[in-house]
């Protein structure tokens, strides 16, 4: 599903190139649950952003469902977002001025989903995450765990092939964090590919593959059952 060949990323400053990622070769299959681990500054988030097409790479090739992303224009990439990719962030990143319902609605609006269909999709999602009662509240009226739940719901509502989660439990207490991880595990079982970035060994263990990054290189990879 995803294939990275010799991907590299650096920031060029007059004389010095600061390397963030080097020689990344990685293949991710449909149905994988990949955890990317490593110390701060290892390039975890950058790698996730490149996979999520939020950031450009400096060199190498990137194939998403056999399409060469490194050759695509912005319009095509936006089309990929809309269709295949859902994001979850550490800081939730909900739109503060919109209610829970409207936050879930936003991606569907950009996908031009018809009103009736949209309503039923949102209703399903609210039901599935057990947040029907919260649909008219604004993000700042929810706890962190609830906000992240809405963020996951928003990522899922477009029925993505893959969810990219950047430290999804980083701002949550352990109970809430566990709930989110269980949720992701469940989604993975239902067929959604998941890539998460994390510091936390325990959270990483939810994945079936753990990729360790250090100083921009893939240091090692572990496979779990």
């Amino acid at each position, binding site marked *: 599903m995803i294939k990275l060949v010799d991907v590299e990323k650096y920031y060029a400053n007059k004389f010095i190139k600061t390397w963030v990622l080097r020689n990344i070769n990685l293949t991710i299959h449909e149905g994988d649950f990949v955890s990317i681990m490593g110390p701060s500054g290892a390039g975890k988030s950058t790698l996730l952003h490149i996979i999520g097409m*939020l950031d450009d790479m400096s060199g190498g090739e990137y194939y998403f469902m056999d399409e060469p992303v490194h050759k695509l224009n912005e319009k095509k990439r936006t089309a990929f977002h809309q269709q295949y990719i859902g994001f979850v962030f550490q800081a939730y990143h909900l739109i503060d001025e919109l209610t829970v319902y409207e936050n879930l609605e936003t991606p569907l609006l950009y996908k031009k989903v018809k009103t009736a269909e949209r309503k039923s999709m949102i209703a399903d999602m609210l039901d599935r995450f057990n947040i029907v009662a919260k649909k008219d509240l604004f993000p700042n009226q929810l706890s962190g765990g609830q906000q992240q739940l809405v963020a996951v719901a928003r990522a899922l509502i477009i029925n993505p092939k893959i969810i990219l989660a950047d430290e999804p439990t980083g701002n949550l207490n352990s109970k809430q964090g566990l709930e989110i991880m269980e949720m992701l595990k469940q989604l993975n079982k239902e067929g959604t590919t998941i890539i998460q970035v994390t510091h936390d060994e325990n959270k990483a263990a939810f994945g079936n593959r753990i990729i360790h990054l250090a100083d921009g290189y893939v240091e090692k990879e572990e496979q779990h059952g």
Partner: protein
Amino acid sequence: MVDLLTSYAKISLRNVRKYKLYSFINIAGLATGFAVFILILLYVQRERSYDNYHRDGERIYRVTVDFQSGSELNSYAFNIPPLAPALVQNFPQVENAGRILNLGNSVQVRYGNNNFYESQLLYTDPEIFAILTIPFLAGNPETALNNPHSVVISQTLAKKYFGSVNPLGLVLNMDDRDYTVTGVVQDCPHNTHLQYNMFTSIERFANMAWMDDWTWPGAYTYIKVQPGSDITALEQQINLLAAEHAKNDSRAAGIKFTFNLQQVADIHLHSHRLYESSYPGDPGMLLLFTGVGLLILIIAASNFINLSIARNTVRAKEAVIRKVVGANSLQLVSQFLGDSLLVTGAALLLAFILVMLALPFYNRIIDGHFSISCLAQQNIIIPVVFITLLLGIIAGGIPALALAGFKPVMVLRGQIKTGPQGMLVRRVLVTGQFFITVILVISALVVYRQLGFMQNSYPGFSGKQKLIIPVRGIRPLEQNYTTVKNELRTLPGVAGVSVSSGEPGQGAGSTAVWPTGANRDNKQMLYVLFYDEDFIPNYGIELAAGRNFNAGNMADVERSCLINEAAVIALGFASPQQAIGEKIHESIVNSEVEIVGVTRNFNYRSMHQKVEPLLILMTPGFYSTITMNLNSTNNRDILALTEKKWAELFPGKPFSYYFLDESLRSLYAAEEQMARMVTAFAIFALWVACLGLYGLIAIITGMRSKEIGMRKILGCTTARIVGLLTADIIKWVLVANVLAWPLAWYFVQQWLQDYPNRATIGAPVYILAGVIVTVIALVTVSSRILKAAAENPVETLRCE
């Protein structure tokens, strides 16, 4: 698409509500800017619309004449009476020509019990109706004035005198002559230089010598030329024709005539001649007002752009999230554009409401007749909507493009900064606003000072406690002025009575004068007034040499004159004493008169002009004004007694009066209007600039809250923090002041140049303007600064 728009609208409205302060500053500021702009546009459109409604207007001209004698040039709005018939006779390209005579005085009109004075009676040739567009509601324009005893009246007059009865064929009595109503015309529109109320035939004066006088200007002359006529060539031909006539006329010796054609729509704004039929417009003023309107709009717009930029940080996050969940750049740009158009649109709506509320006051200030329906014309709607859209697109577009260009990762990682360069732009914008405001405040102060100077300077006579009674009609006081004076003088509370051709401030006619024996070609044009022997003492006018007229001295009535000091110089006498006993020839009565006295220069016109050479004669035929010196403060009793006496002296004539000090004040109506307008502009500019300043201080205190907290923890007192923040803001206001002064000084000099009598405008005016603006700025920011300085550092330093 609709769903997306609903979502955008929802979030826009929530933003308006959530950021109340910003929304208020934006909408209130823009609405003020738009409202001022609309009001100015109304004014400009009105001024430019003068006489644009005449059919074939591009072929209609007024013919005017310049008289040059010696160094004196007089440009008259009207022309010599025999010219119009001569034009039609001599030049095939002149399709039609007509004259209008406006004696300027009121006539007494009677029908049954209705008995009033009416003004704006025009004596015209019937051709006028074929030249100018004056729509008839009843009667035939081609034949209406064929009979000299016919009159065409306006709709309003028809209603006033005849009610619902058809007036055609009915007889009106005007100044004791009977006229048959032969036509009713639409009321005169406000936007014409030639105001009318009634028309009657100029034939009435057919026997007068001046109707065939090629040296006496007095009749407005309008022509309609054939399509495609060469106007310059026609002007030259007219000059040649007139020169031919002047050759055979001894009165024209030494005078050079030049004729000019003015297109009818150009007259109001571009003709500033003697005896214009209405107060002309001032294109410079139009330009000035348009400029000021745009400046206030720019101030409001810069507030808007300023705050949009400030809000960018907040909106950047939303933009990026939208990108991540699938929005493309175009969708983002259109959302933010829509947002700013929503604000500008709301401001426009509010502006229209403000304009509607302000119209009655505005009409009073600019002497206008605007109604709400005036706003619906496309000349107003199109530019205003255009500017609204333009502003919305600029103010929304710049930040939107910046937002759309953000790389999502930069925002999500918190790498977007609003650095110090953004602050500098904002400070420069606020400085610019105050720069404009200071200039406007100085202008307002200067105009008021000049107005006060003109109204309060001593004009060379005493205008206090003087009751003026105009007497209408032809030679109205010639026979009975002695009786009238004696009768009125007996009234209690009356200190003196005098009669004259007019009171000071009214202006004067002019006549050619030359010292006897001197070269007749060296004529001088002198203004001429007619005073009785009591006028000079009653008005406290001082004599520089010689004596006043003597009562009952027939020699004085017929052969003596007074001149003023300016005339002494103009006529070439060495001193006032030298002039006494000299004889001069004057051409009004065409007689030789002896100079018996010289008055000090007094301002017989208005303070707008310097005191020109003046000739004073005693001829009773020209008396038309009674001045009563009152020595009591109980004016009501005196008025009642005077009215009673009037009824005995002038049976059947309505009594009218006014006080001289009021009529003198009204000479400066244009300056008063300008003073009020500039003051209104200055207040609006100050209001909008203060809105911007308040927004800026809100941003600054918000951004510096952590710094303020740190300073307090390190031991800085609240007072010092207040000082720090105040200095940060006020230094820009001071910079604006200092920059504004030289430019304001330049404008003031330019404006004052047109006034021969001008107030001295010193540094205190500039400093006062600076103090006013700075104090208001301080008051504006103080509450916000005090609040920021008093904040508990524990609150501001808490990490989120």
